[in-house]
């Protein structure tokens, strides 16, 4: 368990270092995600790697544990918003309406594009 958490933190640390060092517009944890994914894929190819946190589903169990309460992790930042609601004082209603409409339009555009393309591909496969 400890070694698995350590491996997750190490991936994030390397991700942060690379993102900062190269000035990439990606968050460090996203690079860490890619790194952990590559490690998991490499483990399947090279049995040598299947030890410690990468053996016996160690890092898988730890990762799922972290993700099981993903919502909780947004609470501190959310409370910060409640404290800064006065930023919305002058244009609050307009801002909330704009954001709500935009999120609906974005959800629809994304889901419908995804569906359309995956249907088109399936038709091509069928032919």
């Amino acid at each position, binding site marked *: 368990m400890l070694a698995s958490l350590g491996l*997750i*933190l190490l*991936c*994030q640390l390397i991700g*942060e270092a690379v993102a900062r060092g190269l000035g990439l*517009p*990606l*968050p460090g*944890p*996203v690079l*860490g*995600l890619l790194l*952990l*994914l590559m490690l*998991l*894929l490499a483990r399947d190819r090279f049995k040598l790697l299947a030890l410690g946190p990468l053996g016996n589903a160690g890092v*898988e169990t730890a*990762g*799922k544990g972290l*993700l099981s*309460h*993903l*919502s*909780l*992790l*947004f*609470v*501190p*930042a*959310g*409370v*910060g*918003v*409640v*404290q*800064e*609601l006065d*930023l919305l004082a002058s244009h609050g209603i*307009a*801002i*909330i309406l*704009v*954001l*709500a*409409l*935009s*999120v609906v*339009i*974005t*959800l*629809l*555009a*994304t*889901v*419908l*594009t*995804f*569906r359309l*393309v*995956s249907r088109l591909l399936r038709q091509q496969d069928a032919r």
Partner: protein
Amino acid sequence: MSGNPFSLWVYLSQSPLLWLTVTLLVYASTDAVSLRTRRHPLANPVLHAMWIIGAFLLVTGTSYTTYFAGAQFVHFLLGPATVALAVPLYENRKRVVTSIVPMLVALVAGSVTAVVSVVLLAELAGLPREVVLSLAPKSVTAGVAMGIAGSLHADPSLTAVAVILTGIMGAIIVTPLMNRTGVTDYRARGFAAGLAAHGIGTARAFQVDEIAGVFSGIAMSLNALVTSFLVPLAVTLLVR
């Protein structure tokens, strides 16, 4: 023992322990209610935990800085949890690989829509230029969005508020909206949730379906990258 209960409160209210405990217990209750209502969208545990704790801080006159000294231990886990998204991604890699084309097309369509729609709507609503710029990156995760806002000389704290509000509204609206469109493909539904509503949408997607959560996490990560290139471009083209 101190005879004055007030001095005990002053001591405890300044300690990280109290605010970490409050965060965990309030969330545990809002999450229990959410489970009890079978994850009803309006019973979103983040939404209810944030206003209850916010009201509690207001009533007790506690500053956010004091609160955050305790809550930071929870906040810190956001980074490791993002890394941990690699695990479900790895376990569902076959479905992800076969969906790569629809994902990339939906990524471009969704990212462009997210930025262009908010900029145009905000201009239509007559919001001042600084507000328009601060709202533009609202669909990506807070850290990246605030970075984009900073580089545009907008107001990063207004951006943070817009990001969280977008996430909460997206997480609430996504299930009823998707049910209405009749799309039952959880890859597509999850991808839309992560693209439009970043991590809070992803947390919602994982509550509904694991595949939805995986695709949501991918969309959130890719959108962070695309949006940081897209916003400066859109702002040059669209903002007067």
